[in-house]
């Protein structure tokens, strides 16, 4: 099937954007929760703008907009920034960063105060508390919703076809213009997304099960035995 070569491109867009986007999400969430008014306002504004505008417009703005600025055209980044591939990744990254920040923020807020106090009373430094207590608990809390966000992002990559990227949807559009078999081609394209997202959601479910052992229903004997053998 001639749509298959689009799969790697779709996956690349989704995974590179979410890999970097998660840092945007974490940074924005931490800024929103920080006591600092300036940091909080910046993060709030970022989230407000991204959530309030269509992704398609954001992609256009980045793709066509950046060339308008001389300092960008002349910067060493220009060879990257003029590539539709990287423009799409930037747009998707900003986008998922904004939505993700709200999920991460919820996760951070869900961490029980008492567990943080216990860590403080042990003499843990703030960095250690984040690393050992707060982030692990927040990640566990945020995981299901974040998995959903990655699925949304994967579907959003189809918009990248509009700036000439030949991912699944881009290839489909090209095929249709050559064959005029609209329904068949889009059915196949849709099935490909369905398949990818099925695998993705299974992966998230497995990860969730692993990380949520501490809340899952218990079979005590098997637990201890499994651990003892490990």
């Amino acid at each position, binding site marked *: 099937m001639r749509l298959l070569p689009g799969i790697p491109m779709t996956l690349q867009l989704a995974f590179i954007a979410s890999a970097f986007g998660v840092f945007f999400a974490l940074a924005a969430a931490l800024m929103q929760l920080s006591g600092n008014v300036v940091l909080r306002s910046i993060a709030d504004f970022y989230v407000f703008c991204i959530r309030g505008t269509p992704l398609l417009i954001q992609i256009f703005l980045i793709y066509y907009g950046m060339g308008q600025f001389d300092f960008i055209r002349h910067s060493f980044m220009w060879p990257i920034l003029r590539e539709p591939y990287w423009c799409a990744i930037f747009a998707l990254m900003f986008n998922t960063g904004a939505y993700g920040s709200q999920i991460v923020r919820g996760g951070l807020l869900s961490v029980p105060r008492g567990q943080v106090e216990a860590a403080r*009373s042990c003499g843990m430094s703030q960095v250690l508390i984040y690393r050992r207590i707060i982030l692990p*608990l927040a990640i566990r809390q945020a995981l299901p919703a974040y998995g959903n966000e990655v699925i949304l992002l994967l579907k959003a990559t189809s918009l990248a076809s509009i700036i000439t990227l030949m991912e699944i949807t881009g290839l489909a559009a090209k095929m249709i213009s050559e064959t005029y078999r609209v329904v068949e081609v889009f059915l196949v394209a849709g099935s490909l997304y369905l398949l990818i997202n099925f695998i993705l959601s299974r992966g998230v479910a497995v990860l969730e099960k692993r*990380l949520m052992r*501490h809340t899952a229903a218990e079979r*005590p004997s098997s637990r201890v035995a499994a651990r003892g053998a490990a």
Partner: protein
Amino acid sequence: MSSSALAQPVLQDPDLALAASSADAQLSGQKTAISIRNLHKNFGDVEVLKGIDIDVAEGQVVSILGSSGSGKSTLLRCVNFLESPTMGEITIAGETVRTRPGKNGDLEAADIGQLNRLRSNVGMVFQSFNLWSHKTVLENVMEAPVYVQKRPVAECHDEACAYLEKVGIYDKRFSYPSRLSGGQQQRAAIARSLAMHPKVMLFDEPTSALDPELVGEVLRVMRALADEGRTMLVVTHEMGFAREVSNRVIFLEQGWIEEDGAPETVFGASRSARFRQFIAAQPH
């Protein structure tokens, strides 16, 4: 829980044998484990602590009594700066916490490194246990020794196991806290505290969140710790513990120390009408 587990000697804790030799260690000549000087704490306009002075000698077991809202938790939390005092001085094992005025008018630690070092000498046991829910019991106990005190993992592991044995939940070491009863969780929290070799242990109503039938197992562990000669500050509503186990009772009332003395004296012949009223209102 088997009492034999508790009868076992503590691990290689060199200064323990010394302290254990005299349960009535508060008499003269003892080193001061904790000294609280002129401690004030305001929440907004409300003055919760109005100038508290307490010196706790090594090996002393102090019960802090008081009606709800009298400031007992706040006092305990000010000792390790979980709450920032508004004024005052805290000295732990001879080292005074360096402070400076913070933003909201309370004091804050001037040297976070020092504060964290001192905190690791002060174990705290909470009413709601506060075990780390994503870690097993064993991981909870090993966490601070490994990551804060940076001691060898194997040593921490063996020691953690010994402490869990001591509090009677060794067989639960691979369980997550959510699978334990309240009494077991609290004993795990005590083991977690012990694993740092604290010089002082703070208990904030350690049995108040427990079903009545689980209170006994936690009190037995605490009694064993007292018998070992550990220095303990215990906020409690257990009058039996205050009378029989502790060797000093402090009664807090509206931010003041209303009574302070040996249990026999305080319970036997308190002149404070408020204290007598408080005792009369207790279930025991």
